[in-house]
């Protein structure tokens, strides 16, 4: 399940864990060590002490997932001058503390690397077809979408972020 956009870009949806070290190396090589790299990694949080999340189950819409992630990559490239992009997102059942998502961008300038990585995370959260179900001691619950996530994307669209 691997797709390349520009030759420098990597979009991957997978059940297995990923190695930050390996993806950092790939990104630097693909970009030719261009100056600035920003990495984001999200992990499963326990959230609550009284009824902690024990595991997270990530469902997705396989035929749509990589297509939607690739369109975010294309949009990021249209907004900023970027040398290489990596998006890796896991699906399946993940224990607390495990890595869920990696977004990494390489650019000549730090502002563009920071902005584009944040843009990719903000838009991924509201536009890529993933759904989280929390397994807690008291039961299993679908995670509700957060209004501030939609607000963040609206700000990007209006040029306020």
């Amino acid at each position, binding site marked *: 399940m691997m797709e390349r956009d520009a030759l420098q870009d990597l979009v991957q949806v997978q059940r297995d864990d990923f190695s930050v070290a390996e993806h950092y190396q790939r990104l630097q090589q693909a970009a030719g060590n261009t100056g600035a790299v920003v990495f984001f990694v*999200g992990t499963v949080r326990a959230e609550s002490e009284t009824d902690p999340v024990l595991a997270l189950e*990530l*469902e*997705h*819409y396989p*035929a*749509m997932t990589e*297509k*939607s992630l690739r369109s975010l990559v294309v949009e990021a490239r249209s907004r900023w001058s970027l040398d290489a992009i990596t998006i890796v*997102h896991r699906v399946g059942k993940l224990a607390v503390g495990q890595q*869920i*998502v990696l977004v990494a961008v390489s650019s000549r300038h730090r502002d563009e690397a920071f902005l584009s990585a944040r843009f990719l*995370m903000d838009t*991924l*959260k*509201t*536009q*890529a*077809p*993933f*759904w*989280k*179900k929390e397994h807690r001691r008291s039961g299993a619950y*679908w*995670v*509700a*979408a957060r209004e501030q996530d939609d607000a963040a994307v609206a700000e990007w669209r209006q040029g306020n972020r």
Partner: protein
Amino acid sequence: MIQVLFFAQLRELLDCDSIELPAQAVHVAGDLVPVLVTARPHWAEVLQSKPWLVSVNQTMAKSTTGVNDGDEVALFPPVTGG
């Protein structure tokens, strides 16, 4: 025919992964819920409880997005990845 897929909470509430609908009943994405409710009256409460998101051929759609014979359509809750 139009293939309709359900995901996440909606899939669980309907207890159904996908169904097929005759193409002639669905012209735009906004027709989906009324047509589904007619076909499966016992789904009315779930389908009308929230504004579910719709994709047409794996792209997020509006209620005015056209739907044609052979398309793959999906209904699902707001996404929560990342």
